[in-house]
């Protein structure tokens, strides 16, 4: 899994931004979404959830569900591939 070819990521004080440079669309990320993007290059969905559980308090399987939904959203918007 990786960011799509024309997508750039930058961390900001509030979290981060994704910039799809072909459509010139910008997406603002909150801190947990930023943490997911940071981990995208490092592994699959399960690995990302596992790494986030080390850093954020989890209630049940909330992190897994949220990561899964968020990655699906990113895919649907064409921001990630693989």
């Amino acid at each position, binding site marked *: 899994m990786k960011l799509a070819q024309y997508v750039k990521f930058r961390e900001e004080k*509030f979290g981060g931004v994704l910039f799809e*440079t072909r459509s010139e669309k*910008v997406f*603002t990320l909150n801190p947990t979404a930023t943490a997911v993007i940071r981990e995208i290059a490092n592994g699959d969905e399960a690995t990302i959830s596992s790494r986030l559980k080390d850093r954020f308090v989890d209630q049940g399987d909330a992190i897994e569900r949220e990561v899964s939904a968020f990655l699906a959203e990113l895919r649907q918007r064409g921001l990630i591939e693989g």
Partner: protein
Amino acid sequence: MTASAGAESEDLAAPLYVAWQITNECNLACLHCIEESGPGKAFADELDRDQTFAVLDQLLDSEVPYLSFSGGEPMLHPHFFAMVERACERGAQLKIETNAHYLDRTNAARLKELGVKAVQVSLDGASIATFGRMRVRGEFDRVLDGVRNLRDAGVPIEINFSPARFNLHEVDAVVDLAYELGAYSFYTGRTMYTGNAVKAWRHLEVSDEQYVAYFDALRAKTEQYRGKMRVYFHEAGLLEELRYRIQHPAALLIVLPNGLVKLINALPFICGDFRKDSLAEIWARFRSAWHDPRVAGFVDDLAVDPGRTRTLHQWVYL
């Protein structure tokens, strides 16, 4: 966990997009050129090599994700390919805005090899006569060859079209031509009354009624090419656009060939100078400058006198 569309420049540590007019020199003398570029029109004080790369490195150090090099004709800049190489190797997405006259096979292949995101080419007619009327000194066939060289090299192509009363009738044909040439996008808007266009306005001016028909034709083309080529256009007038920008400034710096930084192309205000100021200083000033009453005042004046855009080259330092 959210990804929300849009970002306010107030919240960002640096710009997201820098549009850099790297030289005012141009081989053409286009009837409508906003920058009044042309042969022999390079600014006397354009940045030298060291200054150019100092600016570029600041942008890259600050992780500005998206740059464009335009002009004038950017490929006439003496360090054009070195700049492209630096920007691409350090991970920026780079767009080149060119008249395509220097896109021979070698240069097109080099742009591909260096990894530019896209090359944007201006094509203001589907015939030699119409194209040549807008692009004074331009060679229509050479442009088509240049675009074909990009396509053959595998460089993503964007086609731009500037409307004038004498080329409106060819817009459908230009959209079709853009697709045949392998473009992935076609863009147009309204031609602005500034720069060279002020003197040529009687040849260029498009009436409101003509614009209505023009954008209707483009809507049909958008549908025709949906899923094959992105056809998009900016229908809003300048005043509407500027009023929106005052409330929501884009995280975009316009850098002039001498390092001065404009607030936005359609206003005369200068908010920084890369020869003296750091990117951080310019970015801070850019954000506060949008709140300067002179900016809102200029936009209000435009509502009364739309012709004030003729003064955009009389820079006002904020």
